[in-house]
């Protein structure tokens, strides 16, 4: 599995991706905020795994590491545009506290505001889910 023509060992990249996926799932299952871990730890770790895997696929499987400037110039503007979208959406995220009630909640037939986890508890009666964890 040397992959001489590619300039790298595709099998090595595949194995690294497999290991990272396994670690990511373990991280996601272990460091749950419901178990008292910080949300930053969960999300930060998961994003690190996801970005590392994405970069490996982008640089090696899509062989961007070996491409010339002209190809890079096609894709480089998109991260800047992504930032524009995120900044445009930021007010909707950061001003959420000022809303009458959050967007994910629903009104029950009596007009009461009910959030999603509470609805889950009412439907299934599972004690594991923690209302108000977000």
């Amino acid at each position: 599995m040397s992959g001489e023509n590619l300039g790298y060992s595709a099998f090595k990249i595949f194995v690294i991706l497999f290991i990272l996926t396994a670690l990511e799932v373990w991280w996601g299952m272990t460091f749950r905020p419901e178990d008292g871990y910080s949300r930053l730890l969960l999300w930060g770790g998961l994003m690190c795994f996801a970005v590392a895997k994405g970069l490996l696929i982008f640089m090696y499987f899509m062989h961007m590491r070996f491409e010339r400037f002209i190809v890079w110039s096609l894709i480089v503007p998109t991260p800047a545009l992504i930032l524009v979208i995120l900044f445009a959406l930021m007010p909707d995220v950061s001003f959420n506290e000022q809303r009458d009630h959050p967007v994910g909640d629903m009104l029950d037939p009596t007009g009461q505001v009910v959030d999603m986890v509470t609805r889950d508890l009412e439907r299934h009666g599972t004690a594991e889910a923690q209302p108000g964890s977000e």
Partner: protein
Amino acid sequence: MNYVAPAYDPAIDAPAPHHPVYDYDSGPPVHRGKFAIWLFLATEVMFFTGLIGTYIVIRMGTRSWPNPEDRLAVGITAVNTFFLICSSFTMVKAVEASMRWSKQALLGWLGLTVVIGSIFVGIQAYEYVELIKHGSLPNVDLFWSTFYAMTGFHGLHVSAGVLWLIVVWLGVAFGILRREHRMRIELAGLYWHFVDLVWVLLFTIVYLM
């Protein structure tokens, strides 16, 4: 030996006979197919950014978001993610076989990629059927509507990728695609890897966060 990307090849990329012929090439200094696919992938990046950005706004604006593990089969989907990564590997091997034009190896690796891609779509379809059976429809709440929007559009992309690879496989098998058309296999591969890359992010955001 390092991989060298194929450059503009007049034998393949020459303008059609009814086009005027100049003594210079006014096109970009890269294969036109590759130029086009990367432009297309850039638009696809923006498409999925729109979906994921909307999800972030909804998620952050919600007081209480369910633990995905309570609602989704994370274990099965982790295995499905592994399948998609396997298919990316087999696609790389197919592209590698196309470089030396080993037709049997190319057909084998391409066929394997189609099979594994189809398994991914099949498992996702099974997941949808089971969820719908349990009443988890897109109109139930925002968790489900964002879930179906993101994974559904990705599933459509994978399905399109499988169809594309089947067409390429048939083209190679029946001799329509030959050694001089090997770039077409690379282009299909770029799309396939992109679909894999998007899933890596979606799996993290939807199933684990």
